[in-house]
């Protein structure tokens, strides 16, 4: 198992708040790693530090053996790291297809337009958007926009995919479909690091889970270990006395 | 040597008016993420307001100050509803163009009505003699008034309910709506305050220097430089930044032809933006 992503002693402070406090973990190639924790635990900030939106105050991010700490976001994307955001950011005025083409063109393989268009079409199809390719992205439903967010990230043929709450706001049927999709994505060779609140999804999908609380890493282990860890339960419930 | 000191002190006095003007600009940005490109035109309106009140209506010069604030406020609120309200949620491009269009209309009307000739309002205020130098009375008075208005603004924003509502909307518009604050109305009030500040600074400047319809541009540039020095959305920083700019002007303009001053200020502006994107006095988070 080769290590694809390694974050070491990440720290980030915003004004008076230590949003990320000395967080370290590693993601092996081919795995699905779940990143969970109560609201405000710093999960999205960790993602921002990894993919170049924010620069860590201290610490290091190594991807595929290369130090990408603090590099600009577009270079990190070029290195093969893609992200599907919690609050979707479709390129509204462009068509669904064009959104995916952007991903394919500027991703890891730096494709020319014709090849990118083929790949984009194929990925969009696989994610169920094949019937809506010419629509402007703004015309999609919320579920559709979530799929577009994912399709666009996948079109870049990343090595590592950061999923930020892709299941939020979906009904049970959509949730099941998305879980299947995530499994298929991993099967196609993409390593996944996912922030998620839907516990049944995290438990069923993840090989390992990392728990953050108030900016620090609280626990790390298999889904079973995490589910039975009293400190984790306490963090979510907010009061350790409740479990005694 | 002490000639320079006098220049510096004078620069600080005038700089406080720059700070006042910049406060208007930075307040609007801080509350609603709109850059008011009609800022310069409104400063000009403030200048002409003083001219017409003082010469045509025989108004006492400094009595025009509250009038400028009042009219500026009403005008600002109207401007918000006419030109800004519809473009608030849209890409920045749109609000830039909207306020710029207002600027074009105002300057165009101004030029048509008053041409580009210089206007002047003669103001006689006794000066202050300190250590053998006379500091111009008008400069001192203008600086004092600017400080008073800045103080009043502080009280408004931090010690009134309206101020609290403004801060709430600035922080999170949706959340403010949820707790019952009529956000659009509050935004219009905030815009009105910003415009009032620009208008009254124009009036104050008119007590110091002659002006034309086109003077607004130079003062708008100064406001931008100050905003950048003090940090976007930070009114206290704006005041300090204004004083800093006044200081810099006091130190450099004696050695430079007048035409070059805007060029130097522009260079300063761009350099500051590139090196300190959050302002030199970044008291608050971006």
């Amino acid at each position, binding site marked *: 198992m080769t290590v694809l992503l390694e974050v070491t002693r990440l720290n980030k402070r915003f004004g008076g708040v230590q949003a990320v406090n000395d967080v370290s973990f590693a993601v092996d190639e081919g795995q699905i790693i779940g990143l969970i924790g109560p609201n405000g635990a710093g999960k999205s900030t960790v993602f921002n530090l990894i993919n170049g939106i924010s620069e860590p105050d201290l610490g290091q991010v190594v991807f595929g053996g290369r130090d990408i700490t603090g590099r600009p976001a577009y270079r990190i994307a070029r290195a093969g790291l893609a992200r599907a955001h919690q609050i979707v950011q479709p390129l509204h005025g462009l068509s669904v297809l064009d959104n995916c083409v952007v991903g394919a063109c500027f991703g890891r393989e730096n494709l020319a337009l014709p090849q990118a268009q083929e790949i984009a079409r194929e990925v969009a199809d696989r994610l169920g958007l094949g019937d809506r390719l010419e629509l402007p992205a703004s015309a999609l439903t919320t579920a559709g926009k979530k799929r577009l967010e994912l399709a666009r990230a996948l079109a870049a043929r990343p090595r590592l995919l950061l999923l930020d709450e892709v299941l939020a706001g979906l009904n049970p049927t959509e949730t099941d479909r998305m879980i299947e999709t995530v499994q298929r994505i991993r099967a196609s060779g993409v390593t996944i690091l996912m922030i998620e609140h839907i516990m049944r999804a995290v438990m069923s999908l993840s090989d390992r889970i990392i728990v953050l609380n108030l900016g620090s890493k609280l626990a790390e282990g298999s889904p079973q270990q995490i589910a039975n860890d009293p400190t984790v339960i306490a963090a979510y419930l907010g009061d350790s006395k409740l479990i005694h | 040597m002490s000639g320079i000191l006098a220049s510096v002190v004078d620069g600080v006095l005038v700089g406080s008016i720059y700070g006042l003007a910049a406060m208007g600009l930075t307040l609007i940005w801080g509350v609603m993420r709109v850059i008011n490109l009609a800022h310069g035109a409104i400063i000009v309106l403030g200048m002409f307001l003083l001219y017409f009140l003082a010469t045509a209506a025989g108004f006492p010069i400094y009595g025009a100050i509250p009038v400028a604030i009042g009219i500026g406020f009403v005008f600002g609120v109207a401007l918000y509803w006419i030109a800004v309200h519809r473009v608030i949620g849209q890409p920045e491009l749109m609000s830039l163009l909207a306020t710029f269009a207002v600027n074009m209309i105002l300057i165009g*009307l101004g030029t048509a009505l008053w041409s580009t000739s210089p206007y002047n309002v003669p103001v006689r205020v006794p000066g202050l003699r300190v250590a053998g130098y006379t500091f111009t009375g008008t400069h001192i008075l203008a600086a004092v008034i600017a400080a008073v208005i800045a103080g009043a603004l502080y009280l408004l924003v931090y010690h009134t309910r309206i101020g609290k509502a403004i801060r709430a909307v600035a922080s999170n518009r949706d959340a403010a709506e949820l707790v019952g604050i009529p956000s659009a109305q509050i935004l219009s009030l905030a815009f009105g305050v910003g415009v009032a500040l620009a208008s009254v600074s124009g009036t104050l400047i008119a007590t110091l220097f002659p002006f034309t319809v086109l003077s607004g541009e130079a003062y708008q540039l100064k406001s931008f430089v100050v905003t950048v020095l003090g940090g976007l959305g930070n009114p206290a920083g704006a005041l300090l930044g204004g004083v800093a700019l006044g200081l810099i002007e006091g130190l450099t303009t004696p050695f430079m032809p007048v035409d070059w001053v805007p060029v130097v200020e522009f260079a300063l502006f761009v350099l500051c933006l590139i090196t300190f994107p959050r302002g030199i006095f970044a008291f608050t988070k971006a």
Partner: protein
Amino acid sequence: MKLVWRRPFPWIITVVALAFALVPYVTNDVQLRESLILAAVYIVLASNLNLMIGYAGYVNFGNIVFFGLGGYFCLFMVNAWRWNVLSASLASGVIVSALALLFGLGILRLRGAFFALATIGVNAAIQQLVTNFEPWGGATGIYLSLDAYGPLGGPRQALWTVYLLVVAATLASLLSSYAIKRSKFGLGLLAIGQNESAAAVLGVPTPLYKALAYSVSAFLPAVVGGLYFYKTGIIEPSGAFSLSLSIEAIVMVMLGGQGTVIGPALGAFLYEEMRRFLLTAAAFSNFQLVIAGALLLTIVLFVPGGLMGFVYRRWPRTQKALE
């Protein structure tokens, strides 16, 4: 490039451009030529400005600086070095876009409004520098002597040649706008214009692309500046760096439909017609600014897509043919 010619649009505009070129030439109608050359200049300014405003989403308020600098470089080369106008204007284009690339890398780091203001400042600063630059005639500018038109066969013949060159530049502007829009570079620009941070996360090299767009958008306006001031015979600072014209270019882009290919050209043409009508009717250039401002405000508030935006929304199939 081959892909470009498979669609109807490039053919349509080539035919129109040929008509533009030939009609006044064949009928020897000097007045028509003069009004068309002005329209052509505006079209070049507007459609290149569109690359920044409509594609990348950055308002270049000071866009006229390219036109003015192009004019100065060209006239200097023709006057002092005895170059012919074609080489001089092309060389000016290259120099100005190289300068734009350098400048662009710096000022495009600034966000939205500050970039817009910085471009005004660049224009003002350059105007100030040129006014004090003796080799370029300082505040009086450069005057071309009549023998500058010698290589083209005398003044009257030269004016026709320049006209054809300007129409060629106009065609080049429209074709390049079209080709860029259908290219990977154009897609990256459009992504930046839609959401710059999302585009960066997707891998679009935003600093480079923005600077390239700024540089590309400088080339043809600089060339046409050279041609236009050569035709006029003189160039001086306030006319070369006129902020009013710069602003009008923005209004033209918005009027016709920013982001579309034909929009800015249409907007330029319509605005020019409207302006001529107003100048004879109102005879106050101040009201020109008021009307342009009111027009811009109306467009921004109610029809942000401009004319073509409206047409494409109402009749979506026209977008397939026209762009």
